């Protein structure tokens, strides 16, 4: 597993794409992330991450329809590829395994 080439922000963006499909594009993703994390997220950052993900082959994109509020410009819609999905699963299972190995007393100390 090439774990290292998926950054934390990229992972979150990738997950959000998976959640929002088939209407995943940068504005929606940024707003979704803002809502989930409570931090301001810029479309620029999201867009950049999406481009990196596309380069790595984890997402693909098509140009969608134009809307008035975009000034008649089209949006780019993203979907997770099979490879992307597998990477997400892998990451998740690594985390799950580690989670399960945390002994309850440690968890108690945190709360």
């Amino acid at each position: 597993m090439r774990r290292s080439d998926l950054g934390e922000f990229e992972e979150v963006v990738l997950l959000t794409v998976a959640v929002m499909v088939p209407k995943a594009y940068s504005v929606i993703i940024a707003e979704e992330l803002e809502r989930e994390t409570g931090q301001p997220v810029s479309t620029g950052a999201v867009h950049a991450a999406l481009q990196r993900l596309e380069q790595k082959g984890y997402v693909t994109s098509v140009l969608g329809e134009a809307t008035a509020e975009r000034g008649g410009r089209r949006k780019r819609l993203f979907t997770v590829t099979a490879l992307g999905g597998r990477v997400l699963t892998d990451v998740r299972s690594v985390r799950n395994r580690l989670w399960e190995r945390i002994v309850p007393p440690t968890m108690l100390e945190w709360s």
Partner: protein
Amino acid sequence: MNPKPPRIPDKLLTWLVAPHLREEVLGDRHERFFRQVQRLGEAKARQRYWRDMLTYVRPVFMKRQETDYPNPTHTAMLRNYLKITVRTLVRNKLYTVLNVAGLTFGITCFLLIGLYLFDEFTFDQQHSKVNRIYRLVEHKKTKSEEFDVAAASYTLAEEARRQIAEIENTARMNRAGRADLINPETQAKFQETVAFADQSLMEIFDFEVIDGDSKTALKEPNSIIIVEELAQRLFKTSKVAGRTLHFSFTDTPLKVTAVLKNHPRNSSFDFNSVISLSNQQGRDRADWDSNEFMVFALLKEHASAETVAKKITALLYANFKPEVGTSLAFSLQPLADMHLYSENIIDAARNSNVEAMGQGTLLYVNVFAVVAIFVLLIACINYMNLATARASNRAKEIGVRKANGAFRSQLVKQFLVESLLVSLFSFLLAVILVNLLLPAFNEFTGKQLSLNLQTDYRIWLSTLLILLVTGFVSGSYPALLLSNFKPVVLLKSLKIQSKSNLSLRKGLVVFQFTVSVVIMIATMVLFLQIRYTSNKDLGFKKDLLVVVDINSAKARTEADAMQMELAKLADVKNVSVTSRVPGEWKQIPLVKMKPQGSAEDHKISYLIGADENFAKTFEVRILQGRNFTSPADSSSILLNETAAKALHISQASGQLVEIPSRSFGGDFTPLNESNHPFRARVIGIVKDFHFQSLREKISPMVLAYQNNPVHQIDYYTARIEGGNIPATLKRMEAAMAKIDPTHTFEYHFLDEQFARFYLEDQRRQTLLIWVALSTIFIACLGLFGLATYAAEQRIKEIGVRKVLGASVLNLTTLLSKDFLKLVLIANGIAFPVAWWATSEWLGEFAYHINVEWWIFVAAGALAIAIALLTISYQAIRAALVNPVKSLRSE
């Protein structure tokens, strides 16, 4: 109505983000904006809009997508211009070389002269407070005279600082005279000009200290500052702060408190030792009006120099009443003006045996500035001429460009790019050339100029400006002209026929040659005048005269014995003692005189104390009367012809003359306290001889006996055999040491001293010769190019003429005629201009050559000859071409 997203970030984004991403990015931005307006309100949304814009500043967005096709932006056009330029330049190698060589030469001359001028204009500006430092100049007006002297009294300087609020500090400096400085350990001894100054000198000016402390250097009495160079000579090291020096005027040793870095070449200050003024603490405080000190004032920020000067004058008047009819006023001269604007200001050190501070001459600085601009202009004209002349070769290119829709502005741009490229190239070559020439140039100008990365940024800035100006000036005319042609005409005839353009080109050639001829004539006149000055009969023989300074009291009191010792030497023919010598480099005193009992005003005359050997040693002719004979002649005087005429004396017969007062520049003061005039008897008249530079008319001169009451003796002058001069000098030194072993042997050759009067002229001559050569050279390059082109254009005509039987001579004349006419016209314009300019310059000399007709003829002939040589090469070559070759292809 929906709120609109801010426009500026949009513009920026459009420009920033790669085209293939622009749509989605801008779409995202707008959509987000509208959503945020609904959620957060418009103000917040706008704020966010700006901030989010910044998140697009990253390579992912900025990087342009690569395409297989060139995108036609203006850089593509620029690249095309460069390509075409390089191709044209490479194809026409001859013209390129001519252009580049001409421009390189022009720029080199300009840069060299420019560096020189920059140095002259930035004199004394190395001090950080330069804009607030002023020198006090006193204007004194008495009944008989009016003069400016850069001096004031000790007390005035002191009180001005105390009482005038605008003055932050004042510094006094007195270049008192020459004295021996001795290293007590090694007894190394040097006679130096010593100056006295107070601590403020170090506070006002930023003299760089390499050892010791500048803040306290002149506080204590008996402290001395020396410069590095003197420290090296005395102690062989520059780390000498704290060591002691012996000083020949006082018994107390002096303590070296600081060692200064040598003065930079563009500093008016040339002292190498400064002694603390605290030594003179007990000065007469009531003395307000003397002018013994050069005084510098540091004003507070924004203080007006004029107001302060008025206050200083008022301060003086409050404490001192000048005689009736005398008025005094002070002005403040900015430090930066000291070098170039002090021509009529008398140096404060006029009374002491020191040379005045060096200064520049504004006139010549201006002349050279003009010359520099002309040389550069000539080089630019060259470029214009060649470019316009060869325009028809490029007619096809211009026509095609225009037919394809090129705007005129684009063509202008193209030709400007071309000329800028050529001038850039020439400029780089010139910078290299300047650096190669600078060592020789520095030696010759006595400066330390450099053109490298350490050079002042202002020089680089202005050279850059010159580069641009040169490029634009030389490119503008061809650019505007060539771009103006009609494409149809261009493509149909492929020839450019324009009468006006031809005459302008001719005008430019005429201009070039006019400037060249003027400079040539100026050079010749300068050369002849300098030869005249060195060969003119001065009324005495200046060769092989050694002048030895009297540097100790014993050498003065025992003058007779000393003279005898010297005269005993086999290779010394005659020895004379005098107070001053003809060709004097220090001040010759002036005296007032009138025949006893005369009701006329006093006449003013120079005075030199001499002895009976004077006439013999200097070979001055005594016209009538007799020479001095014995010490009994102490109240006898000889007059020169001019003085005799002034006093209406035609026969020397012991007339009594009264000499009541003398002056060492500036004020006349009585000879003694009792105001008793010196009554002298005229015993003879000597032939006029030149004792000053030939710029001055021979003035009245009184030769008094050596023990006269006006001025004591100061020199021995020996006429020597020229066989082995160094050995003679050694023997003279030894002979003098017999009488006084401590005496420092310091000598000058009189002919060299005379030559120094014209040193600057000599420099100017050399500089002018080089400038003349460059202008001629550049002008010839241009002419050569034009001649080549003309020959090329008329190749068919020449072929036809040749077939019809024209001889080579005929054809050569045909081709040369046009250009020779231009050179002749140039001569016609140049002659009056040159006549006017050289007459003005010669007017400075009281004794000068006449500008004669043959100088003009010579210069004109030279110009024609050079032009002819240049042209005829091309003309003959064209005339020799086999007509079959030139007529075969049509």
